[in-house]
């Protein structure tokens, strides 16, 4: 019974980290990095060259990961808040991205699907798509917060109709923007070798960090998610907080949608951001956040998003075909969630304790 012995400071810190939420995504990331280091260290090479447009660009798997994970990281921000406050997930984000992207193109193209010059400034288009996305977020939020419908079910509506609405906005045509400046946002700005989406993601993270620091959104969302009755009696309006998280989710969708359309300067309603909601939810779960709401760690969620992209890119590198990819991803996901399951962790911890308890005992004997 020597479990009680005060462990050394180092061990204490380690077990503290072990208990911390960020441990899971961090451990997953480290395992992935180690795997790649052993399998093929060239994975981490970053080269400097020029792309087809003659711009200087950095390229390499790491850049690809950071670039491609941008939308997911941005969505993870909104999804974390929605999950925390409403105890459910928004499954309409993929469809909503189709809508926001469609709005951007519609504003820029007007009635002509192949305009020679844009009909409005990109900023105007972006702002309008933000407003539209936030309205759709508000629709989801209203159903969840004021009609008390479970989030997954409430957002099923937009999930079903979203891509159809996106097509309807552009009269079912596929507009293409030829102006190169539009593509700057999704690819590279001439002269800057780092993909623009990385910057956009960083800006979003900075904004949410500031919001969480200088407002009480985090505390309110958690209180509402854990105990709405209690939150209400402390002067918080639970319905409004839930509502507002869905509006924020709408804003995240607008930004992600904007990146998506600027990557290709066009849109395909039925496949753009397909199943991205699943990845976003997965990011939240990998971050160790309870999908039933309550306490959250934003950093862990965002890290979770990058872990997912890291995994995807790693699999691509090993020539896994894109259609078979989900099967491998599923296996990794299951391993991760099993390892982070409380029951399994408890068992592992007990085994670890026994191991530690056993060794000094043997010394004494």
């Amino acid at each position, binding site marked *: 019974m020597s479990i009680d012995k005060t462990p050394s400071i180092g061990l204490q810190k380690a077990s503290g980290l072990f208990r911390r939420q960020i441990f899971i995504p961090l451990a997953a990331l480290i395992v992935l990095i180690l795997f790649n280091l052993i399998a093929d260290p060239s994975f981490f090479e970053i080269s400097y060259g020029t792309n087809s447009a003659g711009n200087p660009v950095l390229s390499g798997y790491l850049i690809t990961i950071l670039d491609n994970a941008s939308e997911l990281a941005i969505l993870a921000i909104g999804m974390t808040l929605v999950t925390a406050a409403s105890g459910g997930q928004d499954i309409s984000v993929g469809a909503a991205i189709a809508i926001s992207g469609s709005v951007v193109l519609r504003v820029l193209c007007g009635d002509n699907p192949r305009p020679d010059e844009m009909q409005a400034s990109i900023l105007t288009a972006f702002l309008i798509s933000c407003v539209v996305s936030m309205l759709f977020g508000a629709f989801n939020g209203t159903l969840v917060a004021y009609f008390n419908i479970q989030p997954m079910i409430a957002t099923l509506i937009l999930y079903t109709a979203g891509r159809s609405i996106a097509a309807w906005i552009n009269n079912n045509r596929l507009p293409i923007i030829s102006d190169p400046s539009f593509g700057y946002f999704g690819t590279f700005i001439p002269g800057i070798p780092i993909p623009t989406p990385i910057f956009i993601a960083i800006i979003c993270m900075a904004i949410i960090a500031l919001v969480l620091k200088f407002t009480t959104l985090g505390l*309110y969302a*958690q*209180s509402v998610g*854990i*105990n709405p009755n*209690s939150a209400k009696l*402390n002067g918080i309006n639970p319905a409004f907080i839930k509502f507002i998280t869905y509006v924020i989710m709408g804003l995240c969708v607008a930004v992600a949608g904007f990146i998506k359309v600027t990557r290709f300067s066009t849109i395909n309603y039925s496949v753009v951001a397909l199943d991205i909601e699943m990845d976003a939810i997965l990011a939240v779960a990998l971050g160790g956040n309870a999908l039933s709401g309550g306490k959250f760690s934003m950093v862990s969620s965002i890290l979770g998003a990058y872990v997912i992209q890291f995994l995807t890119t790693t699999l691509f590198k090993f020539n896994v075909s894109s259609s078979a990819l989900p099967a491998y991803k599923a296996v990794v996901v299951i391993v991760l969630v099993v390892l982070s399951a409380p029951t399994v962790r408890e068992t592992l911890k007990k085994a670890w304790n026994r191991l530690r308890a056993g060794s000094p005992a043997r010394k004494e004997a």
Partner: protein
Amino acid sequence: MQKDSVLEMRGIYKSFYSVKALQDVDFTLREGEIHALMGENGAGKSTLIKVLTGVYAKDEGQIFLKGHEGPVNIKSPEEAQKAGISTVYQEITLCPNLTVAENMYIGRERSPITNWRRMNADANRILEALAIPAKAQQQLGTCSIAVQQMVAIARAVDMECKVLILDEPTSSLDESEVSKLFKLMLDLKSRGVGIIFVTHFLDQVYEVCDRITVLRDGHLIGEYAIENMPRVDLVSKMLGKELDDLSEIKSGDEGESSYGEVIYEADGLSSTATRSPFSFSIHKGEVNGFTGLLGSGRSECVRAIFGADRVTSGKVHMDGHDIKVSKPRDAMKHGIGYLPEDRKKDGIVGDLSVRENIILALQVMKGFFGPISRAQAEAFADEYIKLLDIKTASTDTPIKSLSGGNQQKVILARWLLTNPQYLILDEPTRGIDIGTKIEIQKLVLKLASEGKSVTFISSEIDEMLRTCSRLIVMRDGKEVGELSGSDLTQSKIMNTIAGGAR
């Protein structure tokens, strides 16, 4: 194992992470006795029971049951039931979406096919025999909490059990329901069932119990026959100290003249939950109370004052101004604080830390764009943990891992931190050990002496007598009397509650 005992627990140990909830606890239950399990909150009563019923796995120790050779190993409530141990918990542990009959029979039917007709008939017979006002086919969620509790008891009674555990079953029952329950317990006792009765009410212990086992801080203090155990001794055994504190508390009998001006006044106030409009006022530095039976509308009234339910009509004056309170935030802005009746459901935010729970109300008052810094919050938390003697590992500990009394202190700290002029405490001492009760009562009087106004609600009349200088008596959602000064006696209050003639 002794001959006449039905249950013996020997050397039980149980710990949660670093907290030792039970250490070397023995417990013996004899055939046909009612055995009180007593102790303060956090003493380990619930843990002991949950170990016995297989909800928690014990770390060490042995359990013996009559009719079983050697120690038994109960791993789940299902197995406990099969071994003849049935339990009624303090919280309702039934399924609200099923019917009353199903709740009585589910989990213990022998055949895999449900015979609805027979089940409903059986259930109705038992419900009638126990005079429980519910129908077999009714969805349980539509019954009141008291009725749900009675259904749980009916279920336990109907099982042919050798051991019946009642874990604070009376906290949501009114007097007549309690006496019905006692009749039932005595009846079962005469049939040889051993009953473990957990309660905080001393009167009830002395009314029905034969023996008392006292736990304190997870240790066994002793087992006593009831006739050898005077009340004062019992209380001091539970607290681990002599009880002079109780007599120290006395409400100031200065009379109303010494109070300051009226600080809060409501005229014809009603909400969606109140049954009729009421008027009410309170002076600076006064402690008043709302009393009445459970369901008399006392909580609904104070909730209306705080704006917790939607206010439908009424005028409110505070500090000489007309104010409008339509939501809790409004009340908070005007310096009203409210500690809710149901701590678990309305009070604590379980997963958040003690620190976050303490600053929550102040934070809301500061507004969305004025978060309290971590250092500041830490300072506030430390201050109140010290002031109220809250037992917690750290300010970062989730509040749900604290004992009931300490949780209540955290909620109290939350409101004290907002420095309210007028504080409403709705059953602040329910389900809390005597030591903490006294601390809270003292605190209330101290607040009043500092010029704050307090409304105090409690089910225990002597507690109200000690703290309040004016009592508003409620019945059927209406105010039926107001007592103060020399009228404040137990019998006067009882008479008013009962409607004069008794």
